């Protein structure tokens, strides 16, 4: 099979819904190159003004944490409640701190 018959690569699509917000994962799509991925992302994910900016990233370029490591990876934060403001009981007089 020649390489031209291969499926177009997969791209992950990130959209900034409005100025001032970060790009958020919207979904994925297939496209031959980045330019086409942006065009397709516009048609597939922003038909109702859902975005003002689009990022596309080749799906295989994303490195992800492993779900099996979830506990080791995120548990150390579990017992550090003092990182949250509610940990500190203050007199009622300082109500807005």
């Amino acid at each position, binding site marked *: 099979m020649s*390489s031209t018959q291969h499926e177009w690569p997969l791209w992950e699509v990130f959209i900034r819904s409005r100025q001032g917000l970060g790009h958020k994962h919207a979904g994925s799509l297939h496209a031959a*190159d980045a330019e*086409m991925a942006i065009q397709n992302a516009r048609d597939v994910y922003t038909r109702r003004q859902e975005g003002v900016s689009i990022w596309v990233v080749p799906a295989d370029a994303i490195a992800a944490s*492993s*779900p099996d490591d979830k506990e080791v990876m995120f548990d150390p934060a579990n017992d550090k409640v003092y990182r949250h403001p509610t940990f500190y009981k203050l007199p009622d007089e300082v109500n807005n701190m």
Partner: protein
Amino acid sequence: MSPVEMNLEARFDAYVAEEKKIEPKDWMPDAYRKTLIRQISQHAHSEIVGMLPEGNWISRAPSLKRKAILLAKVQDEAGHGLYLYSAAETLGVTREQMLDDLHTGKAKYSSIFNYPTLTWADMGAVGWLVDGAAIMNQVPLCKCSYGPYARAMVRVCKEESFHQRQGFQVMLNLAQGTPEQKAMAQDALNRWWWPSLMMFGPNDSDSPHSAQSMKWNIKRFSNDELRQRFVDMTVPQAELLGLTIPDSDLRWNEERGHYDFGEIQWEEFYNVIKGNGPCNKERLAARVKAHEDGAWVREAANAYAQKQQAKKTNATTHAA
């Protein structure tokens, strides 16, 4: 099953029972994965094949406004198909494999799209009834246990409500129009009513996989439950239109607090699923043709992308 797998499966079941979401890289039972691949890909195929009966009327819509609306709706269906194919791909199946299964007839799609759209009123009836039934089925899927499917369904459902409303409006305009227009609307209702009820699938007593899907939180309500809801919701809408639902057994049951309705002709349903509906061959042939006619475009785009990539690589090498 090994003890490790049993342990994983027990954890998975508990997780799902707590209404938590499963994400692509999480462990899941093979049967769960297979069920989802089948369901999501069938759902995607239905969106894509569903473009055909309506595409039929784009060039013949009665006004520019209606044409623009219909175009937008058909484009939405394409988008819904794409969201769903992407969701299915997260489970490890390729787009090519799914399309292949559709084109060879191995995969199914909703049998409703094997009925023809004969008049403009069918655009009304399809939006009102077919999209109405689809919404009834799809809203609970927004809370299904598989994250990517649930997220795709949230998008789909948001967009789908315009589809139903525009369909009802088409029916309303016809029902309030000339006697001929009203007759056209009635005729469309007559033809689409029963196939729409069939969209909810077999009766619960004949739906063997439902219990497992319910346990996995893929399915939240039974086929008969959703069908009853659809009938209860739609009967008053038909009354408002001044049209008659083609069912002599249809009547309000005070005791149950629901409408009773007639027996569905399941023979017809299974016959259409088997491939003997009025348009099965035509629909599949249209999909295969579109895919084959597009082959050179896909290849050309690939070739172009490779050429651009090569140019870039060359430029970098020379610069260095």
